[in-house]
């Protein structure tokens, strides 16, 4: 569905050249749900905007839904759906008018546009809101309308640029219910960017980690976490035993860190298969005469994956949340 070759985009701002995307190669198969993950400014949205032809690439090329973004951008646009970060619907328009207009933008005549509008209104729980102005809709209703607008042309490929940003957990769950149903019904290929790590983890089949304009990891969330992040074991010990505890944890794991907690110290390290190692580790600490006052095993997150890949935390860099 998507194939890119050395896709790159450079910006010049105040005589300074910024390489926003540095020649990335991506392949997305039909029916996949792929998430772009990375901090602000990593190149996620720039990549998405190139793939949707909103932004021409500086070099490289991409075939999206069978058409070239360089030689046939209008052909690409006719075949995909796009839901941007902002509100897709005009603030002062009525919901029905915006959906009808979107139908006409995709070449539908008035009766076909109306029939498609009715389908979308029903499937996205917007019934009864047809004559309401967009400005009077709730955040969740607006976002569902955005999705409906993106689906007007029944695309095989849908791009979602941070679809649930700013939504409360209930509306976010509701939105994903609709997206999941769409995939089940139409096998739609979905490419999304998200700030929500747990969302990328739970919803996507593949995660493309992007940093400084380059794809630095491309795999399933499960495999990325297992191979790149590992489990994290933390033990709380008296401060004077911190050094010995760190030594023991360092024997079996890596990325050892310490954090003072008053008269105690928390010592953490990364382990492969931490749940299996934990009993033995506690035994070794006792053998070393370390009094363990608390122990914690934490399964890895995509933030740990990013930390492992770049040495930086996504949460801290972007202020991202779960």
């Amino acid at each position, binding site marked *: 569905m998507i194939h890119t070759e050395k896709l790159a985009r450079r910006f010049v701002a105040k005589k300074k050249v910024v390489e926003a995307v540095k020649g990335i190669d991506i392949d997305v198969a039909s029916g996949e749900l792929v998430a772009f993950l990375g901090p602000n400014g990593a190149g996620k949205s720039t990549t998405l905007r190139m793939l949707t032809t*909103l932004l021409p690439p500086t070099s490289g090329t991409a075939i999206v839904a069978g058409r070239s973004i360089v030689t046939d951008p209008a052909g690409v646009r006719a075949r995909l759906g796009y839901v941007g970060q*902002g509100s897709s619907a005009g603030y002062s328009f009525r919901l029905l008018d915006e959906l009808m*207009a979107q139908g*006409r*933008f995709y*070449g539908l005549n008035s009766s076909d546009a109306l029939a498609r509008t009715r389908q979308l209104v029903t499937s996205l729980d917007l019934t009864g809101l047809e004559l309401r102005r967009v400005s009077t809709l709730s955040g969740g209703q607006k976002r569902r309308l955005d999705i409906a607008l993106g689906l007007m042309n029944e695309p095989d490929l849908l791009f979602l640029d941070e679809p649930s940003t700013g939504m409360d957990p209930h509306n976010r769950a509701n939105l994903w219910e609709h997206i999941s149903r769409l995939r089940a019904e139409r096998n739609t290929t979905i490419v999304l960017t998200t700030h929500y790590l747990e969302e990328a983890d739970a919803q996507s089949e593949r995660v493309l980690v992007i940093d400084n304009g380059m794809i630095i990891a491309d795999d399933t969330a499960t495999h990325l976490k297992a191979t790149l992040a590992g489990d994290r074991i933390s033990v709380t010990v008296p401060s004077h035993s911190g050094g010995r505890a760190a030594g023991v944890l360092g024997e079996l794991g890596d990325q050892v860190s310490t954090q003072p907690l008053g008269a105690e110290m928390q010592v953490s390290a990364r382990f492969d298969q931490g749940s299996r190692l934990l009993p033995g580790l506690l035994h070794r600490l006792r053998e070393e005469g370390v009094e363990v006052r608390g122990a914690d095993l934490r399964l890895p997150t995509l933030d740990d994956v990013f930390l492992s890949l770049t040495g930086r935390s996504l949460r801290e860099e972007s202020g991202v949340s779960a």
Partner: protein
Amino acid sequence: MTTLVSDTRAVFLREMSLVLRDPFSIIFSLVQPLVFLGLFGPLLAGSVDPAVLHGQSPLQWFLPGVIVMICLFGTSTAGANLLFEISLGSYERVLASPIRRSSILIGRSLKELAPLVVQAALITVVAIPFGYTLYPVHVLAGLLLLGVFGVGMGAFSNSLAIAARKKEWMFWAVQQSLLFPLLILSGMMLPLQAGPEWMQMVARFNPLTYIVDAERALFSGTFADPSIAWAVLAAVLTCAVGLWVGIGQVRRSTT
């Protein structure tokens, strides 16, 4: 298979839905030209040289000026709506659809012009009992000329909105700075013959001057005035350059 016409129609219908759903804006837009005519007409009646009127009613001179002014005000502010849509994100959705870039500009400009036809018809009908002589074919030709010019002005306004999208105040600063010199230096509301020579000289470089002169000729029932040929040239050039600049701006608008 879409065409430029079907794409433009799609944009026009979307924009018009906003107008048609708001009865207050329709009422206000119809009353506004009557206010202009009612207040400006008596005030300026004595200031027009009778030689300019050729024995006709002063309304024959004022009415086309008012209609050109409505056109100028409407199309020059077309970009304000676009600026609003850019800031909210809905413009991006339009760009992500397959419609032609030129249709975005033409459709949006035509939306500003559509009420003009109704406004012009209304004030023309209202002016008849006060001495205005109606020449329907000439008036239609005048509106067509304004339509071509208005699409160009609208395209310029939308281009300005895109250029100023990161500094919204810039749109209004430039629009206001250009609007009034264009208006005054066209002889739209006050005859330039009464002004200094330098003003008359500068007015010759204002495309709107030719439009105003031609509209006055047409609304007075003549096709023979040489100003009409110049006005057609000015309107076509304004439209072509406006669309050329505008399409370039639309293509750059997401960078």
